[in-house]
């Protein structure tokens, strides 16, 4: 309190004595300016980045869940659900209620694609990629294991962040995939 009083007193004295009002005023506001600069250039972008990332993860989780739900739907049975692409796409959409079905360009997420496919493989081997929607293997193809069908679903969502600083946060594609096996019948 005493320092403050001294400072005030000194300020007035020097203002009167030297007439250097403007310099002192700028020094006095410098921490405010610094704070403003820090806020504008660092804190707000950081906050925006956190929000953007957070929302991206939020949608990413929904995208992965949607792929899982679609594949689980398809894997119910070989006879009907495995080839029911419409059903799988609907299952994916239903699993991710926060993702818009049609894209409007507004910030948020919208479906780019849900791509189901099926195929077959040997139970003991690690397959990859989409199925060919046909089964080219026979019983003899699998030695030591047996033939299983699989449903493979990839989900792609276009994510538009809220904040886009000079193109720093462009639109992103968020992807999910799930590959679930089912018994051939």
């Amino acid at each position, binding site marked *: 309190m005493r*320092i403050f009083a*001294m*400072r005030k007193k*000194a300020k007035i004295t*020097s203002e009167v004595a030297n007439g250097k009002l403007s310099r002192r005023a700028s*020094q006095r506001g*410098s*921490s405010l300016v*610094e*704070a403003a600069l*820090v806020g504008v250039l*660092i*804190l707000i972008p*950081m906050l925006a*980045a*956190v929000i953007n*990332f*957070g929302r*991206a*993860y*939020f949608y*990413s*989780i929904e995208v*992965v*869940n949607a*792929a*899982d739900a679609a*594949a*689980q739907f398809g*894997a119910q*049975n*070989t*006879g*009907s659900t495995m080839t029911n692409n419409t059903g799988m796409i609907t299952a994916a959409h239903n699993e991710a209620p926060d993702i818009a079905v049609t894209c409007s360009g507004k910030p948020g997420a919208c479906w780019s694609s849900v791509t189901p496919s099926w195929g*077959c493989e040997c*139970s*003991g*081997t*690690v*397959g*990859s990629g989409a199925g060919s929607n046909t089964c080219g*293997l026979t*019983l003899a193809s*699998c030695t*030591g*294991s*047996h*033939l*299983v069908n*699989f449903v493979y679903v990839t989900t792609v969502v276009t994510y538009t962040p809220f904040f886009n600083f000079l193109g720093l946060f462009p639109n992103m594609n968020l992807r*999910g*995939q*799930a*590959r*679930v*096996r*089912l*018994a*051939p*019948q």
Partner: protein
Amino acid sequence: MLGRIAMKRNREAGQSLILVAVVMVMLIGIMGFAVDFGYYRFLRRQLQTAADAAALAGAMDITYGDFSTAGAAAAAENGFTGTVSCANQKPATGTISICIQSPPQNMSAVGFSTPFTGSGYKNYVQAVIQDNAAPTFFSKIFNGTAPSISATAIAEGGLNCIYGLDTGNGALSMFLSIVSSTCGVVDNDNLNLTLAALCAPSIQLVGSQTGIFGLSCTGGFNRAKVVKIASAVADPFCQTGASCLPAPSPGLLPTCSGAKGTYTVTNQATGPALTAALTTIAGYCTGITITGSGTAAHPVTFAPGNYMGPIKIVNSYVTFTGGTMASVFNVNSASQPGLNIASNNLFGGSTVLFQAATYTIAGGLSDAGSFGSYINFNSTTGQASLMILDGGGLKLVGNSGASGSAGQSTGGITFYNTGTAAGACVTCYGPITSYFNFSGTFCGAGCNLTAPTTGTYAGILFFQDRNDTSTSTCAFGAAASACFGASSGISGPVAHTGAYYFPSGTVDFDFNFGAGAPYTYLIAKDANWYVNFQFNSNYASLPTSFPLRQGAAVLVQ
């Protein structure tokens, strides 16, 4: 004075920089934590997808025994490969561990507990994926290490246990009965419920449900919603993409040239030891008859080998010793079974023991005497036995008035019912009839037939030739192809534990052999129930790779 003030001003100017620096460090840390945490949440979902897929793939393969390989493959297909291990501990930093196990266990290392533990859940598969190799992005700056992220899933395999394979004849029918099951039902055609109820956790139907009106489920069983399926389900023991359960090969018919007639053993207190040379070399070509001979301590014994039949056993103690294949053949009479266990004595029938072996009986086996006999189809504990009925079928009839009848199987027995399709021949197809027609407690423990727990036919009690296409329907107690007939009135425990596998035949249930059995499953072209029946599904006694080629699986946890 001014100088001191200026110095103070300079120090003040630095203060905000320090403050900003400190705040920045904190903010970056918090932001890093937020971003990393978001990523771990995302990774956790991916792990869950992989765990779900792995548990399902494992459960689908539970009947094949390679559930661990299949589960790990499914996890890899969903992006996670690592050490396949079920050690109850966190994996080392930078590594991923994948555990595929059955039955499921509580995994305290990942804080996962489950009610599906123990040998009663051998058809459940648990997948636990622990990822201790997750990258850190921002928190790395502060030397933060990623947490071990884990996901678990449990799937149940081997879900169905009742299959009606017929695609055009209304595969499953129930009349005035409640059929309860702890496992699912598949019907490739219509399901007929006439004053009946089908109480099962799942019912898959290709056709439609017919019948007048139903009964209610009781005893804690529930009626599942009928699910329509688009295409017929294949025989689970002969599924697309899997090798079929192999059919056993019957032994070859022996030859005999001689005219000595029938070899008889009559009223010998100490039963003689018989060898195949007796009938195939010595020329007794019309069979063996054993009457009133042997004791429990000194039975008439048959060494392994091929014997000319028919063999008739009346009020005697007989043991067929195990070891190599023992065959009993009937090549002389189409009207008699190859092995006929008869009785004509009020004070008890015969006691016949079969030690563990593969037996071929041409002309079939019949225990249809006026008074009950005791047969143990496999008296050797811990070993599987196979009885090939090469024509003539199996007839186990317990009649009133004597203690004990029909079969027991200490070490487990599989009956393979085969023959040829031709008309009146020794080896033409015969029915399997397990028919009890007495009241009281006569049956005792002797009426329990149990499938083997080891070997190719683990879990298979009755296996009928896939070429036996006869689908005749049997009425109450009548003998027709693959007919199980029984009248009510038995109070003793009666149980058939194992599979009724009649891929081309009809099974009629006139008696409930299921309630006392730990597990029963039915694969038949057609099946009819005339009494309440219960299917249990406790497979604890069976090896993991029991041969029910059941592919469907469902996530349970």
